């Protein structure tokens, strides 16, 4: 089936099997391997992308469901060589160790902050429940999100 979607500002059209997951479309069809796959059970959040302005697990969405959608992946977050404030905050606050969960964390966290730049620590932790990190113990991730929220102010 033919699907078309705008990914990081550019429109792509491909003929795919209906069972192709969006994450495989991004990785295998478009070669955008920034979006990771960390589980088989829709629980880890490593595959989080933005679809029509919302954080979505691309491993639990079919490419055909995303037909016509506007998608942003981790590759599309920076403005040229200038990192997004969330990326910068993760870097500066050691919000990652191995980095496997990081693209999903950053994509989930940017939407949380855009929706509410004044989150409490408890709200940040509740908001990141769909993203699992096996390395950091979350402390520095929460710190990064707080720092980014201060930079992002009223959202963007």
């Amino acid at each position: 089936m033919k699907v078309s979607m705008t990914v990081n500002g550019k429109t792509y059209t491909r003929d795919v099997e209906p069972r192709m997951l969006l994450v495989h479309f991004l990785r295998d069809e478009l070669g955008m391997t920034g979006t990771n796959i960390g589980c088989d059970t829709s629980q880890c959040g490593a595959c989080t992308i933005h679809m029509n302005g919302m954080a979505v697990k691309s491993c639990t969405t079919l490419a055909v469901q995303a037909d016509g959608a506007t998608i942003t992946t981790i590759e599309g977050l920076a403005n040229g060589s200038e990192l997004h404030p969330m990326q910068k905050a993760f870097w500066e606050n050691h919000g990652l160790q191995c980095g496997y969960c990081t693209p999903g964390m950053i994509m989930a966290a940017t939407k949380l902050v855009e929706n509410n730049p004044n989150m409490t620590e408890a709200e940040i932790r509740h908001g990141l429940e769909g993203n699992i990190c096996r390395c950091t113990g979350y402390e520095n991730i929460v710190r990064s999100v707080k720092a980014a929220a201060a930079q992002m102010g009223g959202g963007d």
Partner: protein
Amino acid sequence: MYPPKFDYLRADSAANALELLAANPDAKVMAGGHSLIPAMNLRLADPGTIIDIGRVADFKFLSANDGYVGIGSGTTHAEVAASSDVPSALSEAAGLIGDPQVRNRGTVGGNIAHADPASDLPTVLVALDATISTVSGSGTRMIKAGDFFVDLFETALNDGELVAEISMNQDGANTGSAYAKLSNPASRYAMVGAAARVTVEGGVFTAVSVAVGGLTPKAQAAPSVGAALVGQAATADNIAAAAAAVQNDLGDDVMGDIHASADYRRQMATVFVKRALTKATERAG
């Protein structure tokens, strides 16, 4: 992980979905896909044909009128969680489903049609005495939530019948509702969930409705709790005593698994009924 192969059809209206279903009687509909895709990835489901109803505008609405609120089956959990028109128990439960990403895609209709015993919404809908409206080739039906959930993953829906709308009374005057749950730490599914709606007039309970889920094969009304509370003063002691009455309504098939034993869940039912009642009572004030 890839889902097994299937043919894909996309419905553009409720009527079109019913036509496609009539022409493909073995097909499964997909709304958000957040129960169906995980089940397919694990080969627990293998539908030959999928009819995507995720874009059907007829199923996407949320409107309140005259103390009554109607929610289209295609409304997402995030939209329900953000609504101040729905009873507090429902927005609270919707906001505790999974995580933000799941709530952005999963729908109310898909959640109740799937009837996972660990789901949150069936429990709330039973406590709120909600009505589920369906459409099929032979017309429309209205089913009370208490009759809709039949057993583990089993509902009163017939083949070719779709959930169109879920409706219920809003929390009216002197009335409050709440949902409390013991979540599985990884998936956030309910190991025990309790929903309550209470009306308090002159410091006395005049109406109480409670339901529990997560530990029983289907969401279960707990009439013993209401019976123990109506006519009593709205005090913490009375709530605590009445919450224990939930044990009379749990039946013999309380479920245990690797996450929590049946015994533990049974004890937690009293605790979470008490929490739901306490919050609902505060909101009734």
